């Protein structure tokens, strides 16, 4: 793992050294996933593209501290070059195409970089960089005006005859109480947004949860400006990471205005996914039901066996994918993974089709567990999605999603349907099994059968053709452990020649023990 890692870095590093190479890489229409992403499994095998002699030493397992520094230095140089690419894409003017391409593979964790990239990707900042400052000033003022106008304080705006219990529609007190109801609803959800982050809850005891207040204001103003959709639970989860990213930005141009910027970015993002939240559109094609249907069809296309399995188990896609799709997977992963994922989602030219690819990738990554589990297990796994580390977590999922998107994913061959476990202990299995185990061509059923040792005690000196002697004693033991004693042990073929005193040479492990 370590050595492959270093090779990949060198491999990409070499490319980046050459500026023409860099340009070529950036101009390819296909996303250069293997070259620009340091963590993707290196496509080139070891030994290619070595330049310096140190690498061979590096690849060996005993690394001296000096060489470790070298590797880190190399990584740092590589990172800086990649960072340079990102920064050059928005240097004088915003190269939108390049921005999208670069962002698709993940935005580096340089302070402020992700914040400005998301603003561009979500359509907030214009492509003409010189217009940024005036644009920002104008929009922030707009937001502030809205805050003042829409957050009603009945004392200031009171008409002459107005009183707190007024229920008429033009009473500012009435409006105030109605807004309070909305605010309460928003507040309940906001308080539960990303509660584990210190960023949000650090002053909770002191009473000043200022970031939560900001979230509340944004959602409240959005609800008032969009009476068609108002506030739906879940919007807070989408706003949370966006606001977090913007608020952590310390560049002077954006610092302190995270709220206004987050509001506009959130609005434009909602403009694309609002159909998922609108209750009346639920059944329509663009609504959430339509999207779930599309996900299901995609799964059917890429992995028919798995899809069929779900159908048999009656695992309705709504059970697991509703939350995935409406909340853009923000609840399924930890925040760093969510941010990385959203880099790719926002830069997707076919807006949010990539989301379906990612969802199907998630399902496919755990297909073994899904195929072998029951309905309840599957549901539990999908609703609390957790992928084992050997599948490389989010990186693995994104890789898979890219494959799916490019049509390169091929599902593994379906397993045979016959469940031969019910034949354990029956005499029907012993001879045919032997033949199967010892056949020259590998049988597809080889893996399905229990190991030889569990059926009988093999004797290494015996030839292939002779009939096996079943040891009643040992057989009984083993059968009982498999079936829990429910099946009776089979009658031995030759009770007289029992092999109790014979040592079980290869009763353990491999099916080729008989040889």
């Amino acid at each position, binding site marked *: 793992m370590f050595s492959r890692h270093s090779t990949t870095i060198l491999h990409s590093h070499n490319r980046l050294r050459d500026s023409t190479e860099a340009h070529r890489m950036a101009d390819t229409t296909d996303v250069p996933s293997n070259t620009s992403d340091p963590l993707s499994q290196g496509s080139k095998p070891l030994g290619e593209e070595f330049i310096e002699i140190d690498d061979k030493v590096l690849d060996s397992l005993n690394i001296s501290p000096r060489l470790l520094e070298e590797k880190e230095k190399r990584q740092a140089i590589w990172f800086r070059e990649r960072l340079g690419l990102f920064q050059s894409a928005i240097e004088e003017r915003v190269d939108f195409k390049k921005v999208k391409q670069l962002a698709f593979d993940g935005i580096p964790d340089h302070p402020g970089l992700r914040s400005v990239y998301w603003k561009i990707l979500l359509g907030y900042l214009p492509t003409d960089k010189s217009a940024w400052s005036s644009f920002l000033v104008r929009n922030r003022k707009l937001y502030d005006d809205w805050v003042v106008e829409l957050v009603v304080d009945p004392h200031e705006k009171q008409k002459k005859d107005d*009183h*707190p*219990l007024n*229920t008429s529609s033009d009473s500012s007190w009435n409006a105030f109480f109605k807004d309070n109801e909305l605010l309460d609803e928003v507040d309940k959800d906001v308080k539960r947004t990303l509660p584990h982050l210190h960023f949000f809850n650090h002053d909770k005891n002191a009473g000043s949860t200022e970031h939560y207040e900001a979230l509340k204001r944004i959602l409240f103003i959005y609800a008032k400006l969009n009476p068609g959709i108002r506030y739906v639970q879940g919007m807070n989860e989408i706003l949370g990471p966006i606001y977090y990213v913007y608020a952590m930005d310390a560049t002077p141009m954006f610092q302190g205005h995270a709220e206004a910027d987050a509001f506009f970015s959130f609005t434009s993002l909602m403009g694309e996914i609002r159909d998922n939240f609108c209750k009346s559109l639920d059944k329509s094609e663009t609504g959430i039901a339509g999207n779930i249907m599309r996900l299901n069809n995609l799964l059917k296309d890429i992995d028919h066996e798995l899809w069929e399995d779900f159908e048999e188990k009656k695992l309705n896609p709504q059970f697991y994918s509703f939350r995935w799709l409406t909340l853009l997977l923000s609840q399924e992963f930890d925040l760093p993974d969510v941010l990385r994922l959203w880099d790719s989602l926002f830069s997707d030219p076919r807006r949010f089709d990539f989301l379906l690819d990612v969802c199907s990738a998630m399902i496919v990554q755990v297909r073994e567990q899904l195929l072998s589990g029951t309905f309840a297990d599957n549901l539990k796994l999908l609703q609390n999605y957790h992928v084992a580390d050997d599948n490389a977590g989010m990186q693995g999922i994104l890789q898979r999603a890219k494959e799916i998107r490019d049509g390169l994913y091929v599902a593994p061959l379906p397993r045979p349907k016959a469940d031969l476990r019910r034949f354990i202990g029956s005499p029907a299995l012993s001879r045919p099994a032997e033949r199967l185990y010892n056949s020259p061509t590998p049988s597809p059923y080889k893996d399905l059968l229990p190991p030889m040792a569990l059926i009988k005690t093999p004797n290494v000196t015996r030839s292939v053709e002779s009939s096996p002697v079943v040891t009643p004693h040992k057989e009984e033991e083993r059968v009982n452990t498999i079936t829990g004693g429910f099946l009776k042990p089979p009658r031995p073929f030759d009770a007289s020649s029992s092999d109790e005193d014979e040592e079980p040479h290869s009763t353990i492990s491999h099916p080729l023990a008989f040889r």
Partner: protein
Amino acid sequence: MVLVLVIGDSHVPHRAASLPAKFTKLLVPGKIQHILCTGNLCSKDIQDYLKTLASDVHFVKGDFDENQSFPENKTVQIGQFKIGLSHGHQIVPWGDREARAILQRQLDVDILITGHTHQFEAYEYQKKFFINPGSATGAFSTLAEESTPTFVLMDVQGTHVITYVYLLRDSEVKVDKMEYIKPE
């Protein structure tokens, strides 16, 4: 911005059947934070009704109250104001300003609320504020034969109190307001 309802002297069921419908239409739960009741509700019905309007309800004992467990006087701190509550039949002469002022000094409060006279009053006297919410049902009293049903709503904001009085005159609800600022 705290809303405090001041109400009392409804004398239900002895002298009046219930609170006026127009008042109950206005008094919806969720808007009012505190209720200060001057007493003489008489029955438990009004007590329960007031408890549904807000979570923080304070009662004092009037001369006709059925519930004997209410205290004679009560002091409540709401925002920056210390508010005293008493029925008023103990203050003799009934309705006298200076006698009320004695009680106010005794309780050491900024705002004193008393009832019993069934007449709405809200005045500032010796830099302190005195409120009489009148009778919520306009019940008979020995001081005046008929009276307008009234109650009072206080809007407490920092050192300001805006007092809204709701009167039922000619079957219409009329609102009036008055402001009191706490002296330094």
